[in-house]
């Protein structure tokens, strides 16, 4: 099934999705990798405010190439990174921040599958390495947070238009397309 969705995502938006569905997403997504996940969790645990709101939000496992010319930020290439590295952090993030969709590549582990079922979230795979294709779906960089972590690890808040093809590879019913 081909689906068009817009952020923020509701629980019923994601509960209606099943593995194998193809989604094109419009709205706001936030990139986050290992270092950003770790800092988010440290912030939550020590009750420090986060610079982003992820309620109904979308996390994109991606470390983009960003070009900075004067005040203008342009996404040059922005395909997904290996999601499995975020496995130790993601269940907590989904539970505490209300994330509804995680975009990445290669799939995630059992704990994330469980958390997605329990809290209502999905994992969507963007074709790996397709950096220019992904960048062509980004209409602008809304802002950047935690840039001290370095370009690949910062939180890039992106406005996207028909971002995809996204394959629902883990759904909120405990199903996954990955074997093993």
């Amino acid at each position, binding site marked *: 099934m081909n689906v068009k969705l817009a952020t923020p995502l509701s629980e019923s938006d994601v509960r209606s999705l099943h593995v194998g569905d193809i989604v094109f997403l419009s709205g706001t997504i936030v990139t986050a990798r290992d270092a950003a996940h770790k800092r988010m969790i440290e912030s939550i645990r020590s009750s420090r405010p986060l610079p982003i709101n992820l309620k109904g939000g979308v996390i994109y496992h*991606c470390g983009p190439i960003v070009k900075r010319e004067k005040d203008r930020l342009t996404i040059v*290439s922005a395909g997904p990174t290996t999601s499995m590295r975020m496995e130790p952090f993601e269940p907590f993030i989904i539970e505490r921040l209300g994330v509804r969709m995680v975009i990445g590549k290669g799939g995630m582990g059992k704990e994330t599958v469980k958390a997605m079922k329990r809290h209502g979230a999905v994992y969507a795979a963007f074709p*790996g390495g397709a950096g220019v294709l992904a960048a062509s779906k980004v209409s602008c960089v809304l802002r950047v947070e935690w840039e001290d972590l370095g370009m690949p690890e910062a939180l890039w808040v992106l406005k996207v238009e028909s971002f995809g093809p996204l394959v629902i590879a883990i759904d909120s019913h405990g199903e996954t397309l990955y074997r093993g």
Partner: protein
Amino acid sequence: MRWAENFEEAVVELLRRSVSTLPPDVKSALEAALKRESEEIARIQLEAMLENIRMAEEKRLPICQDTGILHFRVRLGSSANARTVRDVILKATAKATREIPLRPNAVDPVTGINSGDNTGLHVPWIDFEHSEDDWIEVTVLPKGGGSDNVSTIRFVPPSEGLRGVKEAVVDAVLRAGGAPCPPVVLGVGVGGGASVVMQLAKKALMRPISERNPNREIAKLELEILEAVNGTGVGPMGLGGKTTAIGVNVEVAHRHPASYPVAILFNCYVARRAKIRMYPNGEWLFC
């Protein structure tokens, strides 16, 4: 001086080509994979991959945002010395990072600080080979992190021989799943000892996937491993399908009687490599 300036420009262009285009052998293998694929999700992956490659070539932008850790191999002719070549490659790398741009991928393992320009302790890594020719040749292999993370070395029981090699590779592919961005290219080293075998695997990755090892037995092994890997069903991006690898290259060295090391280096489907030749008069060309 003029020579060094031309050389620097040539290395910047080498880097630009290496990250924004794919060698013809890799591209045609991906096209062939799409032709024989019947699973819809696998086809969607392969179509997006090929569309992205076309877009990157047209815009001269990095195919993948992970422009890798840079690994150079320099065939040093009689007209240049290693130190000058090294200095120029470092300058060109920093310049290419700003201009193309490349993603800054050199992180200090102690402080966690990204150097910002892809240079740092021992990176880019440069291997030198010597030759009597007056020209020099520079090959670059920008290799992404996702495929490196699942690369591995195994010591198979010597009594198992080549069968053990094949089983080790298939096992590594199954463990890796979708993480290395399949359909992958596999560089396999056999023999030589723990440190040599990784070098062999890297050498294997520098060979076009359309070329077989000149030794007939090893050429046969390459095809057998390819078939076995594609029988796993891991498929493009680990989402299932007919093609899990588009190429398997094997390089061997004699081994210790007690030891049978096998190195398995994964490269993602964005299997980038590019080469230039530079003459003493400052002229250069891609080859």
